[in-house]
């Protein structure tokens, strides 16, 4: 051996650190849950009515649409992309389906199908532009945000949908429930569970993470990158379409830019929920919890009679806190992992 390189004798590799790592990885979900519990507990002490059945139901109802959008957004963000057009899609779908059902007694199923179709189409356009034309996602979806919003304005012509025109069967979807559980949270939870299970348990689901973690490695591993990214956008569009119909069902009264600005709310929820904005990390469960947390903060401020203008500032603060914690955790984990490598006597 003529190179001056060798390393002191390796230490014994310590066992049972897998559990610790898992815990670190899950820390995000747990810490949000913790924050949520503290928030609710404190508010309940100040104002016991906050925890009334009605109060809780309201929070879940309000969070459902954001959760749906967050699930779709997670899929996109995990692949190291972003979908800013969802707010516009929700507005467009809510208005168009509203227009469709107005006056006549149309079937709820048909309304949902129309909403899904419009959403899927928007997602398809986004996905094709991002994956096949190679245009950066931020630019593409910023563009479609305005285009879709414009289409919405054109169709609406300044009009609005009134709750009185929306058939009761559709409004029931927004406020009714089965066995005391309202439909909206039920749908949100089902969608979240399905997507979450798919992402974790199926090889193609893991490929979304692979793409976001290292596009180059994904290419070398033969991952069908374009198809997966396209899928992510179509799903995000579909869920935005569904959210649009539910928006109409919940609020009844809808203007064309009903959900303007929601795209940023969704991205915030996703990031607060621990989905790395650079892709490869995060779960839909975390994103859903993030959405729930943001919604709860909104309600809490109302209950505590804090000026609602503070809500945006608080959301921003939470976002900054979340990324700071991410950074700290990442540094910490790197250290742990490097130490483990050293212990393995590499």
């Amino acid at each position, binding site marked *: 051996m003529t190179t001056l390189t060798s390393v002191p004798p390796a230490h014994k590799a310590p066992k049972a650190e897998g559990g610790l790592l898992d815990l670190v990885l899950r820390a995000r979900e747990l810490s949000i849950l913790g924050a949520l519990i503290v928030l609710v507990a404190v508010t309940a002490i100040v104002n016991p009515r906050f925890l009334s059945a009605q109060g809780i139901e309201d929070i879940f109802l309000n969070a459902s649409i954001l959760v749906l959008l967050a699930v779709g957004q997670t899929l996109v963000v995990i692949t190291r992309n972003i979908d800013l057009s969802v707010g516009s899609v929700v507005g467009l779908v809510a208005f168009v389906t509203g227009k469709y059902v107005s006056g006549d007694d149309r079937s709820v199923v048909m309304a949902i199908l129309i909403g899904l179709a419009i959403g899927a189409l928007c997602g398809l356009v986004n996905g094709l532009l991002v994956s096949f034309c190679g245009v950066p996602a931020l630019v593409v979806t910023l563009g479609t945000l305005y285009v879709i919003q414009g289409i919405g304005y054109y169709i609406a012509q300044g009009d609005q949908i009134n709750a009185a025109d929306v058939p009761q069967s559709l409004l029931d979807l927004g406020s009714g429930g089965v066995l005391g559980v309202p439909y909206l949270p039920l749908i949100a939870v089902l969608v979240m569970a399905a997507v979450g299970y798919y992402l974790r348990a199926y090889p193609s689901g893991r490929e979304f993470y*692979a793409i976001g973690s290292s596009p*180059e490695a994904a290419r070398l591993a033969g991952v069908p990158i374009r198809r997966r990214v396209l899928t992510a956008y179509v799903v995000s569009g579909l869920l935005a379409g569904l959210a649009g119909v539910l928006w109409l069902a919940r609020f009844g009264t809808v203007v064309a830019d009903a959900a303007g600005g929601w795209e940023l709310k969704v991205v915030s929820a996703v990031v607060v929920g621990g989905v790395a904005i650079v892709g490869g990390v995060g779960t839909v469960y975390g994103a859903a919890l993030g959405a729930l947390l943001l919604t709860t903060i909104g309600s809490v401020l109302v209950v505590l009679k804090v000026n609602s203008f503070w809500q945006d500032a608080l959301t921003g603060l939470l976002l900054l806190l979340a990324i700071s914690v991410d950074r700290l955790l990442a540094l910490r984990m790197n250290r742990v992992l490097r130490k483990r490598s050293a212990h393995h006597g590499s």
Partner: protein
Amino acid sequence: MSEPTPVLALVDVSKSFGAVRALRGVRLELYAGEVHALAGENGAGKSTLVKTFAGVHRPDGGRILLGGEPVVFNSPADAQAAGVAVIYQEPTLFPDLSVAENIFMGRQPRGAFGRIDRTAMHAEAAGLFERLGVPMDPRRPARGLSIADQQVVEIAKAISRDAKVLIMDEPTAALTGQETARLFSVVKALREQGCALLFISHRLEEIFELCQRVTTLRDGQWIASETLEGLTPDDLVTRMVGRELDELYPKQDVEPGEVALKVSRLTREAAFTDVSFEVRRGEIVALAGLVGAGRSEVARAIFGVDRWDAGSVEVDGRPLKAASPTDAMAAGLALVPEDRRQQGLVMEMSIERNMGLTRLRALSRGPLISRAAERANAADWAVRLQLKYAKAGDAVGVLSGGNQQKVVLAKWLATEPSVLIVDEPTRGIDVGTKAEVHRLLSELAAGGLAVLMISSDLPEVIGMADRVLVMHEGRITAEIPREQATEESVMSAATGRYGKEAA
């Protein structure tokens, strides 16, 4: 006598990129149960050849034979499906995913309903690592793995695909001695299991240790394929450079002048302790030691990148401020860092701009940088260092490793330093350019520069240094004059076994 059929072979393969003919009529045959070395200087076409095997490049002419049958690799996936696995110097893994997932991405073991069977996946991965004799937890994320471990993951991936051919492109360049030894034992085990392996390394001794046959390329042309038995390293070098190599260590004898760099009792917590030495004008002093002994840390502290906790540094009798690279530069210090790509150069910037970076003031006319002055500066240094390049406006990234190193040297020499600190000056540089870098260092010293050279390459340390300082666990354990420096004496000091009698 019937010849066995090669597992994978190139027949008269040619490949051009524009006007550059990267490969011309190259042939190469890989047999099962054999480690084949690919030798050649940087730019000889080794990487192009590897990428042809890997399905990244399609040859313009010639054929690829798989088990004697012609095949066409249209994509990396085709090559993988055919059982060809390539392990690059720096593997590309998914940092956020577990080691097991990295190995099985897209081919995970399935359970009911097509779900991933994680238990089976982890067990299979663990089995692979056991076969390789490397302890690794399949559930840990790939982030934070050392390069050596990342390569092991890639090898495990290759084995799990039942790869018949394993191609390793400079796998040892970033490994420590121990890691290299582990890699070699893995390679030998694979060879015994009937794998065909292609091994690329700049370190000739590794080729002789590991391989049975060698194919040499020069300027994209096939020179020879032969068994290594009976071949000497000098023979191989001659084939690679096509001429008798000038002496690899052309050290001139210089009478040392005044002390240029004086380091006294320098200490930095947890890095090094009580380090004292002097470097005189005209001297090349080597700082040797194992990786992690604190050599680079000393250099960084002297140059002011890191703060020192105690002690002092003087350049030409003038004490330096701690933690101030600006002050160090003003005093006449220059540091050529270990990692060219990260710390030495701005890879996307042009050659001339990189060279001008250290003296933007001097190249300015008023508040603006003068392009003409920048160009003149670059042209001047390019001639002095015999830089091989197409246009001074080209990005530094397109140059070969050796020429990149020359650009870094030019950048620092342009500041007219009195002390030059070079950290691993020839790592990853081919033999031909290595000799040139050595000649350059020797000339600079002869011209009155004080050179402090950090190197892990023992022959380089012994061949180039007037004095060898050896560090062990953060302390200088020996100072060995040129006459007494041998691989044994330096190594024993570096491992802490150095007794007083050896000095």
